[in-house]
């Protein structure tokens, strides 16, 4: 809670820094504020305090996801020096918008009342609509902003209709009150209630870009500036999943058996669509967009197999995915700046001129693919374990098959880097903070891949 206040205040201060042309101080101040916010969340560990008349509940689940999203935002802000300056001189607005959207994210991961979920999603999304369109003259960026905006509000409409129906049946927006009512009804549910939850699932599926509600995601991820895409595909996605699973863990745990077929189909379609279409992509950025859809499918399995370990499995997966995704986008930004292309060919021979960047990208690709010794492997492992314990053998079989298919498109870029010859001898120049992010990402990926116990027992 202190974290939310710190970040909101510092975002306003940053707007003033922009007004007084103190651009150099913006990123350091933002990073310092985010570190302070992480500390305040870490100090609240195991305290389980309610805020705002039970509308926010900062439990350990909320704290873990808050720290993860704030830490990912720090990595993304460390990549930003020199990036936003190329787009416009108003850097302060962009950093402030990212921080405002982070405030929404923090509400989303700790909500205990559907009004807080709605407010959180909107605070996060409205900032991101603007961020997707910050290249005002670029038609791709325009298109991304409009699609994101229209589909985002469309999804919000579904979510709200679901909330209204659930409210009509239970008479409350409070998750714990709803949970008590659900438990009293003993697993039986009225049509109104079931319809309400289905609408909410549709709304959240739009937000996490699960197929068949994914069609906006590739265009938006492709058209938005790469740094904004990395924020969308890591922080926004993590927060949406945290909100999605919190809804089921706290409120609807008693009736989830009614939605097993729905969630099963969503997960299966998402995994297949994401992986198969990713095979046919020519550009690295669009491949990452489809791969992020397939990752949404894997995380849906953890919601489907809801149990005491689900929150932890999704957390581990989100950690692995966020870190790998940020480092992949970091390299993509540099390669794009050098070769002015996002296709796989732009990565040809990267290992010859820039062995360290090639190594960092290889580690992140291995983690996304789920190769052992990287964090991504244990992310998939934990999710598949809880699904097998609950008897979803067919779905896990399908998911493993698709994970093998995914090797093809992740390894395509590794092959391009190591096997093909470069078109020029130019080297990529990295600033200090850029190197720091790549080192942190690579070390964290390997560390969590070798010692999964660090994170797996927290929830």
């Amino acid at each position, binding site marked *: 809670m202190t974290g939310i206040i710190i970040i909101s205040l510092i975002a306003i201060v940053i707007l003033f820094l922009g007004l007084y042309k103190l651009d150099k101080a913006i990123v350091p101040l933002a990073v310092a504020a985010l570190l302070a916010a992480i500390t305040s969340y870490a100090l609240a560990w195991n305290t389980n305090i309610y805020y705002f008349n039970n509308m926010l509940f900062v439990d350990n689940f909320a704290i873990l996801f808050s720290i993860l999203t704030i830490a990912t935002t720090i990595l993304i802000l460390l990549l930003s020096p020199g990036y936003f300056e190329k787009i416009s001189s108003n850097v302060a607005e962009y950093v402030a918008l990212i921080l405002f959207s982070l405030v929404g994210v923090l509400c989303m991961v700790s909500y205990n009342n559907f009004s807080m979920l709605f407010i959180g999603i909107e605070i996060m999304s409205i900032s991101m609509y603007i961020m997707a369109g910050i290249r005002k003259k670029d038609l791709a960026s325009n298109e991304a902003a409009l699609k994101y905006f229209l589909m985002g509000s469309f999804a919000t409409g579904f979510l709200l209709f679901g909330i209204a*129906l659930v409210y009509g049946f239970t008479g409350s927006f409070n998750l714990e009150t709803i949970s008590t009512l659900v438990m009293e009804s003993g697993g039986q549910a009225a049509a109104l209630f079931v319809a309400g939850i289905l609408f909410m699932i549709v709304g959240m599926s739009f937000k996490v870009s699960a197929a068949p509600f994914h069609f906006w995601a590739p265009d938006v991820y492709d058209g938005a500036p790469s740094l904004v895409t990395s924020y969308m595909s890591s922080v926004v996605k993590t927060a949406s999943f945290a909100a999605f699973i919190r809804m089921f863990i706290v409120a609807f745990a008693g009736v989830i058996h009614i939605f097993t077929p729905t969630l099963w189909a969503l997960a299966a379609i998402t995994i297949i669509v994401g992986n198969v279409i990713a095979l046919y992509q020519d550009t690295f950025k669009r491949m990452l967009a489809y791969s992020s859809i397939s990752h949404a499918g894997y995380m849906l399995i953890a919601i489907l197999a809801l149990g005491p370990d689900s929150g932890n499995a999704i957390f581990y997966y989100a950690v692995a995915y966020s870190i790998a995704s940020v480092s992949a986008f970091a390299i993509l930004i540099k390669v794009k700046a050098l070769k002015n292309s996002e296709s796989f060919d732009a990565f040809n021979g990267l290992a010859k001129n820039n062995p360290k960047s090639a190594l960092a990208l290889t580690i992140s690709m291995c983690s996304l693919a789920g190769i052992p010794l990287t964090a991504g492997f244990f992310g998939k492992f934990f999710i598949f374990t809880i699904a097998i314990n609950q008897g979803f053998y067919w779905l896990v079989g399908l998911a493993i098959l698709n994970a093998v298919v995914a090797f093809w498109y992740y390894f395509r870029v590794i092959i391009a880097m190591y096997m093909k010859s470069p078109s020029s001898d130019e080297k990529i120049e990295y600033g200090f903070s850029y190197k720091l992010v790549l080192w942190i990402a690579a070390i964290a990926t390997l560390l969590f891949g070798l010692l999964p116990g660090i994170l797996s027992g927290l929830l």
Partner: protein
Amino acid sequence: METIVQNIQTVPLNNYIILSSVLFVIGVLGVMIRRNAIIVFMSIELMLNAVNLLLAAFSAFRGDPAGQIFVFFIMAVAAAEVAVGLAIIVMIFRNTRSIDINFLNRLKG
């Protein structure tokens, strides 16, 4: 206030549910069928207002003010969305001289 709640209750709850469902479906169809960005945007607002109507009706029938408070939240947030959404549409109109969303198909694959 009491009389308003009593007036709302003179119509059966099912009628409110049916009316707002119809409005919601009109909004969804509008988003899917119409190609003018402003009309699509209006359809989304129609969806949100269908939800507002539903929440107000439930709130009156249950005698619980939380639903009406939620309506205020939705209206405030919808206003913020309008500000950002219209700005995006104006930005696109300046670049393409059109607000037809079929024009926007540069991103494919």
